[in-house]
């Protein structure tokens, strides 16, 4: 049994009246705090590296910080902490590089049991894949435009 389009629209309108809403203020505050703390940790690592290796260039320090943050996330994901941070922080934990690392490590852990090649490797980018595709496409596009100006 199937409703026609008009009836279906009416039904959807009716159920949407009563839907529980996402608490936007709360989620935004949490996202701001979580994202902010993650960035502060990154900044802290950067400052520490600069203090230890004063001769290091600024962009080298940046690369180092990125690697450290990815490593930290991978460890936190592996021991089952990062999903709790994500559930609390929402976009605050997804937008920084840590969110990207989590989206690669989590399917890798999950699919490890189906084997290394067809399980782990094939599924590693199941969530992050589109980001990479769009990232590469955009960079190629920008590169071509840059060529002509």
């Amino acid at each position, binding site marked *: 049994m199937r409703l026609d389009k008009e009836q279906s629209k009416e039904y959807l309108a009716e159920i949407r009246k*009563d839907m529980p809403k*996402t608490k936007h203020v709360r989620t935004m505050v949490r996202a701001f705090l979580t994202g902010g703390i993650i960035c502060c940790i990154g900044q802290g690592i950067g400052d520490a590296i600069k203090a230890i290796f004063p001769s290091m260039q600024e962009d080298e320090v940046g690369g180092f910080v990125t690697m450290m943050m990815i490593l930290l996330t991978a460890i936190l994901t592996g021991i089952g902490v990062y999903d709790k941070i994500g*559930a609390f922080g929402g976009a605050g934990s997804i937008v920084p590089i840590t969110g990207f690392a989590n989206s690669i490590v989590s*399917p890798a852990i999950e699919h490890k049991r189906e084997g290394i090649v067809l399980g782990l490797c094939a599924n590693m980018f199941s969530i992050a894949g589109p980001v990479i595709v769009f990232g590469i496409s955009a960079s190629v596009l920008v590169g071509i435009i840059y060529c002509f100006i």
Partner: protein
Amino acid sequence: MVRTVFFDRDVAITQTSSIAGPKEGEGPLKKYYDYILKDDIIGQKSHEHAEIMMQLQCIKQLLNKAHLSQNDVDCVFGGDLLDEIIGCNFAMRELEIPFIGLYNACATFGEALILGAIMIHSDYMSKVITTTTSHYATAERQYRFPLELGSQRTPLSQWTVTGAGCSLLTKKEEVGVKVTSGTIGKVVDYGVSDANDMGAVMAPAALNTIVSHLSDTGRDETYYDLIVTGDLGHGGSRLLQILAKKEGLNLGKNYSDCGILIFNREGQDVGQGGSGACCSNLVFNAYLYKMLSQGTLKKILFVPTGALLSKVSSLQGETIPAIAHAVAIEVV
């Protein structure tokens, strides 16, 4: 068209068994479960293996409780949520009992009860086991995201129940918990495409089946001590009550939902409540069956509900159809 089959008072549910996951074991029904798992992987190498093991142990536990051997049972009717229902298929590999695999998503247990009762009533079989299982981790992975992905659940989402339950159906003339009739559901699609809003998907299917059941049997909603739907959750149940009012049905105090009963919504962070093939099953086999055998409840209408989506159908932009089967279970 016959939607309701009647079983003249002789198809009895004589024994049940239940295994609940750790989170379910902290819920309001914890004292009713036969066995509560300490963790959800139970020493297996994957959650899928854990689900298979849970299913197998549940059937073995039922055989023990009923003092039966595998040869005494004519058939197992069962299913689960995994692709190609591997939970049941692989558990049955370890047993010497004929098996019919079923799939109606979370309504599978209702389907199994009706088919089992038909087999007993028609005298083709004398002992039938009906069973389903579901597991939070395997369902999350199949339908949603990896467990360790840091994502937020929407307010409408429900929590898939981890557990397994089975019932033993036999012919019995003395007074007992009997399956007296069953109404077979129709697939109903109201055009909802949000895979998180299962309540809105399944409520119309539940209503359709309940209305048909009441008109086929000539009963009204007050005939039953309890009308209990499968896994609509808090939002879905409220929606069903609103929809029912429009049809002139008053689902008030004698109405509840297994998704509501199984978890403590405030304390357990489960969104709208429980869901999954084992949600209605576990509530029935652990809690409702005991209420019926003690005489606290005498007549219930048990309506497991299922959303018939797959990950592929959702991605291809399909709306979500749903089904509900109604089983009248009475102490007669």
